[in-house]
């Protein structure tokens, strides 16, 4: 069966490919320009301030990093859990993971007050800091996935694919747990003071990463005129449905446990009831657009089989995921710190009131630039190396059932 799956680099040299390349390149350049503008002038040109210290760039960056580790899932299912149907999907999965991580890290670094001190960040380590650990987790992740890809793509090394895949799987769990812990370790802010934060990030990564993966898979197959069978696509979309449901479940658990603890009632009230933009983003963005609607779309008996609907569902999951990041990162900071329980406080520095934050254009541009960096890397890589299978028609993916699936495969093509 393995012999049936061939990989081939992207061959078409049409204007489509180079147009895409140019478009992504331009967006990347705009993003870099925005970063330079912020660095050159200082952060006063952004909406970030001493209350909302992490803003829009961090929403993008954390989303990309979380999605990166989730994108590796497909490969893990193939080599760690031995589901052979997933194996042809693995190289793209590894590639997307690296690309998304690179995009996210670029945004994170370019938003620093001193991106020029990157060398300092790499030579001075405070081993107590979860942030420093993350720097190592991130760079290590890149290296591990590169090795994993090599084992997969070099026939002579194939026998090591399984252990390499296993190692990468463990590493990615550590990575997302680490990312979640960045927030979990902040004891002072009520919204983050929850042990469930880290596992919630792992589940979020499954969902966001898979949604990104399905979109990239569908787009790349369509644009390079390769055949993507229904079987594999439906399997992926059903998996996505499970993940989206799991995220909803974790969000529910998070808020319920918070409601149990009396001291967290006010922050819950803020997010769920009267937090203005954050409440709206939570219910409409995160729960409705990012959860219930895509769930209905994916599981609808007829609509759920349409490729357009599947694509839109993935896009909604990503949008909802961004909303969720915004609620967690920005909302968590906007809610006033409680210094004097039972007291009404006021000061010249916005004590006791909800901090206001209006992201400015350069922040969006930098964030979008990060997304473009990820997509640009994928676009270039699939042309230079053999990441994409020639075909994922049903007959090739799952030969045992090929005979009865032939009909659908033809239609899908």
């Amino acid at each position, binding site marked *: 069966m393995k012999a049936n799956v061939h990989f081939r680099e992207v061959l078409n040299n049409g204007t489509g490919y180079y147009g895409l390349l140019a478009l992504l390149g331009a967006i990347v350049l705009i993003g870099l320009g925005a970063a330079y503008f912020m660095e050159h002038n200082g952060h006063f040109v952004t909406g970030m301030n001493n209350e909302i210290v992490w803003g829009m760039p961090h929403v993008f960056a954390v989303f990309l990093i979380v999605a990166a580790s989730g994108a590796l899932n497909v490969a893990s299912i193939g080599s760690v859990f031995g589901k052979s149907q997933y194996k042809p999907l693995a190289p793209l999965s590894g590639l997307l993971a690296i690309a998304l991580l690179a995009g996210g890290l*670029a945004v994170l670094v370019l938003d620093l007050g001193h991106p020029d001190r990157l060398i300092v960040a790499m030579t001075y380590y405070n081993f107590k800091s979860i942030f420093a650990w993350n720097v190592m987790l991130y760079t290590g992740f890149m290296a591990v996935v590169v090795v994993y890809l090599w084992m997969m793509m070099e026939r002579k090394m194939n026998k090591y694919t399984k252990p390499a895949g296993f190692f990468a799987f463990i590493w990615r769990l550590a990575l997302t747990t680490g990312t979640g812990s960045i927030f979990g370790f902040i004891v002072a802010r009520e919204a983050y003071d929850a042990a469930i934060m880290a596992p919630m990030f792992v589940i979020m990564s499954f969902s966001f990463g898979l949604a990104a993966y399905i979109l990239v898979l569908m787009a790349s197959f369509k644009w390079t005129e390769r055949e993507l069978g229904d079987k594999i696509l439906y399997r992926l979309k059903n998996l996505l449905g499970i993940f989206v449901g799991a995220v909803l479940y974790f969000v529910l658990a998070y808020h319920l446990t918070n409601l149990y603890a009396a001291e967290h009632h006010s922050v819950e009230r803020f997010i769920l009831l009267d937090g203005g933009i954050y409440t709206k983003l939570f219910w409409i963005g995160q729960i409705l657009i990012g959860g219930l609607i895509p769930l209905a779309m994916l599981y609808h008996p007829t609509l759920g089989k349409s490729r357009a609907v599947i694509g839109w569902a993935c896009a909604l999951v990503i949008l909802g995921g961004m909303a969720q990041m915004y609620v967690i990162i920005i909302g968590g900071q906007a809610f006033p710190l409680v210094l004097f329980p039972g007291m009404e406080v006021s000061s010249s520095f916005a004590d006791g009131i909800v901090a206001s934050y209006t992201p400015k254009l350069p922040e969006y541009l930098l964030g979008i630039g990060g997304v473009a*960096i990820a997509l640009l890397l994928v676009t270039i890589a699939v042309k230079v190396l053999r990441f994409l299978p020639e075909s994922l028609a049903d007959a090739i993916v799952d030969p045992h059932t090929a005979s009865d699936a032939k009909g659908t495969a033809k239609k899908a093509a």
Partner: protein
Amino acid sequence: MAVMYNYVRSLILLAGMALLGLPLVAQSETPLPVIPEASSRFSAEQACVEPTEEMRKNHMNYILHQRDETMHKGIRTRQHSLEECINCHVPVEDKDGQPMRITNKDHFCSSCHTYAAVKVDCFQCHADRPVKTTAFHPLTSQASEKTAFHHSDAGETVSADTLEVLAEEGKLQ
């Protein structure tokens, strides 16, 4: 990407250096930087806090060492303190009577650093010229205005061996 960013930066830097280097190759006569006079001498025998040759080559090591000592251990000797470098070396500008800024190519630091094309990172946080202070006097509770160029001066706590030196010289009765 971060790596790429640095890579691109170093490429640009390299290109810049190559361009700067061109005239050096073209004319063998390169105008040496004009280094402004310091406003006082360290001692009769020695111009600066270490022999001048040593300072030209290794001033950054002294400053770096002092930086960590002061920052982390609270050691505040003045011999190698950046503040004293600035107080002594950044002369008054002729035109408006204001001391020069680092952006001025005749500023003590930039005169050489421009020539050697080495970026100075000190002055994002440290003042690039002697600073006037209007501060409360630390030892009295009334606010006594002290408007002068900030210098180590009266009220300074002196260390044990400085006291010894002073006693030797008969300045302490």
